[in-house]
């Protein structure tokens, strides 16, 4: 499963780095504590969060995550979009709650 395929099946909007959405997803991590993801996010994970701060991008880049999904209808901050573009980290968003996004990812086989 690639980021692009998951984005299409979940109807996620793409806010940055659409050139990098063909990378493979290895699973997902759900957390709003960035320190938790720094310690526990695994390479290729898709990260579901309601945080929108630009620190998200550095944490995702550090851990080699495949994409960030901002759930709950929150808009990514402008500097977050710019950083994601710079770092080539796909930045996606959903109007669904984080719980629903995680459930849908599980349903389409991201486990």
């Amino acid at each position: 499963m690639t980021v692009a395929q998951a984005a299409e099946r979940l109807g996620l909007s793409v806010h940055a780095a659409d050139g990098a959405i063909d990378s493979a997803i290895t699973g997902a991590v759900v957390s709003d504590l960035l320190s938790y993801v720094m310690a526990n996010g695994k390479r290729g994970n898709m990260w579901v969060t309601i945080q929108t701060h630009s620190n998200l991008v550095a944490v995702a880049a550090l851990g080699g995550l495949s994409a960030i999904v901002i759930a709950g209808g929150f808009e990514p901050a402008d500097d977050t979009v710019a950083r994601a573009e710079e770092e080539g980290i796909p930045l996606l968003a959903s109007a669904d709650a984080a719980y629903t996004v995680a459930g849908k990812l599980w349903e389409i086989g991201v486990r």
Partner: protein
Amino acid sequence: MADRVPADLHVHTALSPCGSEGMRPAEILLTAEQRGIRVLGIVDHSTAQNGWAVAEAAHAFELRVFVGLEIESAEGVHLLALFDDARAGMDMDAVVAAHLPSLRNRPDLFGEQLLLDEWGEVVGTDERLLAAATDLSVEEIAGMTAARGGMSIPAHIDRTVNGLLPLLGFVPPALQVEAFEVSRHMTRSEARARWPELAERPLVTGSDAHYLDDIGAAYTWISAELAEAPTGAREWGQRLAREMTRSGD
């Protein structure tokens, strides 16, 4: 240590829902003075309304009082915004009020929020849910504080609940604050050992007192000269930062 005096920049009043009803101006000031505290920061969650009462009452004490707020950012991070006087504090109070959710406090769940006068008499209650996050980023809060002549200090940066480092992973590069507060559960040298990025950062400690007995439970030694320095809060914070960079415990 005569040239050094203790500062506790993080003390709540009875207006904070989790604050004891005993946290009234004279009692706070008497306790602080008895414990040798010379500089006090008075903050409540999302509001500075009781700050003026404490600042008024402080004229009878040998204490310098900064009036401020403990503001929760959209990311869940708590920041202290400290000002010279109640007027500047109330200006920030109005800004924060416009960025809080419109929820009402449930005293049975969160506690009473008592508005006090300088004599410690209850003059009302704040009906809003003060223990709530604004929709402002940490950078926006620090910027608005600076624009009003105040100093910003992210509170208890080591704590998983509302602390900057667990929530945001690291100090955002664009964040401009005067100092960082380590909670009383950890020493500053322990914090620097755990987070190497703090090595060159100005660190302070504060009690985060919600009860009289906790006032001064953690404090920061500052120079007596700084304690008395007749500068505005922002410049005072910058001088504090110079004293606290690489300082130990």
